């Protein structure tokens, strides 16, 4: 009985350790669709290798790596989060490079929302809720904070702000019409063109560039370096461009 229990336990847990050539990539939520499309190309070029993705807000991903999550590659949606990774010696600094760029946009639900065309419109009374990323852990939230601080709207707009776990949650709130406006990346807004409308491109923040680096504790360092190099290659760049990402 005891043996059978141990055996079944082993069988259940076995897949966790099985694939030796498995590469775990923690990537910013905004990269979800582009990275998923890249996976088969990378795997085809390196037989035996399988990619496993973990998408979330960059700050959350870094926090997981700091707690010892078995991650090989980290791709962040801002330089600040990656800088923190460098400061905490969580990533191999010499492998760091920028591979994509994006822009911040103000979006509104496609239908049934008050007209919002400029940042000043957010002050209007009929704009009741505005979705933004959590400032402490979500890069798009920090870009939004910088932009709204530049126009001196960050403090007065506080009562209207709803803080989301990642950029895709902001997009979801807007597309469901639960908020009147939200701040996301252009690439996210393009994915739901039928449900959200881009009101304007927002300036006044640090450039949105995506750095990638091999995680210091990676057990697949060589393969991880391959993936970082692959991101800079023509094939990956073409997919990124298709989703609207710019060159860094």
């Amino acid at each position, binding site marked *: 009985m005891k043996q059978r229990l141990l055996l079944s336990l082993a069988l259940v847990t076995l897949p966790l350790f099985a694939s030796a050539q498995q590469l775990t990539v923690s990537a910013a939520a905004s990269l979800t669709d582009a990275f998923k499309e890249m996976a088969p190309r990378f795997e085809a070029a390196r037989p035996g290798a399988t990619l496993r993705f973990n998408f979330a807000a960059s700050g959350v991903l870094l926090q997981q790596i700091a707690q010892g999550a078995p991650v090989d590659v980290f791709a962040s949606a801002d330089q600040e989060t990656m800088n923190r990774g460098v400061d905490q010696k969580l990533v191999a600094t010499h492998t760091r490079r920028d591979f994509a760029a994006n822009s911040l946009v103000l979006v509104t639900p496609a239908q049934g929302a008050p007209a919002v065309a400029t940042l000043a419109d957010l002050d209007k009374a009929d704009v009741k809720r505005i979705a933004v990323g959590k400032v402490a852990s979500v890069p798009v939230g920090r870009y939004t904070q910088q932009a709204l601080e530049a126009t001196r709207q960050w403090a007065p707009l506080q009562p209207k702000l*709803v803080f989301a776990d990642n950029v895709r949650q902001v997009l979801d709130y807007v597309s469901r*019409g*639960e908020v009147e406006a939200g701040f996301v990346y252009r690439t996210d807004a393009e994915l739901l063109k039928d449900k959200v409308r881009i009101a304007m491109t927002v300036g006044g923040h640090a450039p949105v560039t995506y750095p990638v680096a091999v995680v210091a504790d990676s057990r697949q360092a060589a393969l991880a370096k391959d993936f970082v190099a692959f991101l800079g290659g023509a094939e990956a760049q073409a997919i990124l461009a298709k989703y609207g990402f710019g060159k860094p």
Partner: protein
Amino acid sequence: MPSELWTQFDAAPLALTLRVATVATLLALVLGIALGWVFARTRLPGRGVLEAVCMLPLVLPPTVLGYGILVLMGRRSALGGWLREHFDYTVIFNWHGAVIASTLVALPLVLKGASSAFAQVDRNLEAAARTLRQSRWSSFVRVTLPLAWPGILAGTLLAFARAMGEFGASLMVAGSIPGQTQTASMAIYDAVQAGRDDLALLLALIVSAVSVAVLVLSNRYLQRPTP
């Protein structure tokens, strides 16, 4: 470091947690007593299915509950749209949304406590009250309810503890808005995500301490012999 933690410490999430749990528990108490009596004392057709539906939040993933509330009460839904149109009211991103979620998860615990407590009340005592010219309502309030009270109270205290711990569905419906809808469980989640382990630990300890106190009280009522 600790002094920095104390100056940054915000009691609002704890206060909101107590407020949400209290309102949700009171709502669950009223609903639970009514439904518990129905399930224990009547032969309503479809009673078994209805009871199972009421117990569902106990076992459902919180995400299913949250999604259900969004679908039924979101701005694009029939009810949510109507409330918004006529009363300019919505439970989304409002602490009332957290109350709804917490009431639903608290209800099964009050309901179970109440229906088994009602089932154990000696029907002869109620009959005696009726012979003494007490109305049905009066005999319920003066005889049945006091006799069933310890069981109901034990379930209610458990429900309060459960309501305090509600997280997933509340997060989906009410969001985590500091000072408005951010409960203690959400503040802990945010603190962990932001790498503020000291703040997360402090909040976790406080929430655990309150929950232990409530559970101890609940056990005390459960172990008290039924009169």
